């Protein structure tokens, strides 16, 4: 293996392709809610793309809150050693 060449996952073209596939898959899943019936228990699930929207917001919120948490809880690596 030629280690001087960047690996396949570091080539901008691959990254672009992966992102394109991810975006297409998300769009497809979102649109599938318009076409196909999805069995629901709670009325809130009826919102088109509910799971997708919730997943996206949850992850965004998770990272933002975790970053805020770092401000309060983060200490130096050797905090307990001293």
């Amino acid at each position, binding site marked *: *293996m030629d*280690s001087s060449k*960047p*690996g396949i*996952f*570091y080539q901008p073209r691959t990254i672009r392709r992966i*992102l394109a596939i*991810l*975006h297409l*898959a*998300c769009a497809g*899943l*979102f649109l*599938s*809610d318009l076409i*196909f019936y*999805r*069995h*629901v*228990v*709670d009325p*809130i*699930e009826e919102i088109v*793309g*509910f*799971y*997708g*929207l*919730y*997943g*996206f917001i*949850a*992850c*965004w919120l*998770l*990272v*933002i*809150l*975790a*970053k805020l*948490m*770092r401000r309060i*809880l*983060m*200490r*130096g*690596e*050797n*905090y*307990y*050693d001293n």
Partner: protein
Amino acid sequence: MIIDFASYIIGSPWNLPPALVFYVGAAFLLFSKYLPAPLILIATPTVGLINLITMENSARLNTELLSYSVELIYIDELSFLFGILFHIAALFSAIYALKITDTRQHVSAFIYVGSALGAVFSADLLSLFIFWELLAISSAYLIWVQGTRKANQAALRYLFVHVISGLILLAGAILHIHKTGSIGFIDIDLTGTAKWLILLAFGIKCGFPILHSWLPDSYPQASPTGTVFLSAFTTKVAIYVLARAFVGTEVLIYIGAAMTMFPIFYAVIENDLRRVLAYSMINQLGFMVVGIGLGTAMAMNGAISHAFNDVVFKGLLFMSMGAVLHTTGRINGSDLGGLYRKMPMTTSLCIIGAASISAFPLFSGFVSKSMILTAALDEGYVAIWFLLLFASAGVFHHAGIKIPYFAFFAHDAGLDAKDPSWNMLLAMTFAAVICIVNGCYPYLLYSLLPYPVDYRPYEWSHVVSQLQLLLFSALAFAWLIRSGTYPPELRSVNLDVDWIYRRGIKSFGSNALLVFDRTTRHLMFIFRIVADHRLNPLVHHLKQHGVFARTWSISFTVLCIITLLLAYLVHFFLYT
């Protein structure tokens, strides 16, 4: 007792107590000079598994301990499933550790596995307590053996927490036995203080919020192979006993929901990837605890099957991170990256584990976790369901994406590495195959569950909703990384509840001790002056009907002793 054992074993040669098989295996490892250790390591779980599968349903082993009749083998669907699970986990953990030459590690690992099996198959509180304590001691050694100062201290804290859990269990058991006169643990009906004490003891081992910090504190300090063993047994024994004694206890729903939520925030900002997995373990346990709290057939099936799948995929993830630590000597996200070219097999196997924990369709987590979520919604716990859904997206984020991304992709750290030895790869492949088989064909696992399964995971609605949740989470991750918003991996310590006993109490305690010391000296001085003058009236307390001459009930005395032991433990931990 020995005669009981002997007659039982001679009477039906294959109905061996599962714990005994591993204890004998440990003894062979320790004393046998002629049998090679790898052979014993593979043979013991294999023999144990055959023993368990062929065991008669009516197999019972009663014996006598402290004038109580104790039962060391109790088999029903629940104990059988956990028994099978623990044997499988022991097998892949043993294969993973095959090349470790330090026999003591293997011995303590086998005593640990044996004790977990002992706890699962014991039908009474007395033997449960004994195995509970053996579990703590044998597993602490797996942390100790790493030999670093950090590992030694973490092992001491770990032992401290678990011995306290044992003492609380003992106190609860004594209260229960005193009240009901029965030591039986199967179909136990706990009430009052005994119930809460026993729940507390189980909760410590299960990683309930606030009681959880031993887990992310100790697991990352163990040896790469030790952590694989540790991740499989202690917390799952806790899930098993909760599933025995606390089915449908509503408070568990809220405790479980909290357990799924708070660790994901820690996992996002944690740098040590094995600690990320430890937090992720509390998150997964949370799902199971919610299931047990809901207590319906669907929820219990979900909780138990998820425990099964969790042991395997979490084992796989710990093994892959162990392989990274073993070959590169590093485990912090900030030091790793770009390993996929040098460790392609490990990368692929890790991704299978990551897909399973994230509950991707066709992987094991999907067929079990979704049952718990569906049950929560069916029972009308909509707010809890929202939290569980949040946590599901979160677990994909930190375990599904973060672990493989920062270890194998991200920025290339240029580390020298290669895939680990064949035995480690074999153990990981074994676990990965179980993840895929259970994901694609869940009916084998479903057939082992205690309740009939009325759930079809592969329906359009389930698959699409899960894929939406996961892929949009991935989209959020991608956008956050691209926009530079994602928090970078930093060398750091994040404060958790263990701060209280690692820093808080110690500084508070030493100040308090100083004040206490001075006050008592003054008090003693005054007391001596008073006592010299008025000693006589005190004498009657020591006479026939005095306070000190009264007889106390055994249970009260034992409770006093336990309290004293606890106080001594706390003192020892804080001031040595």
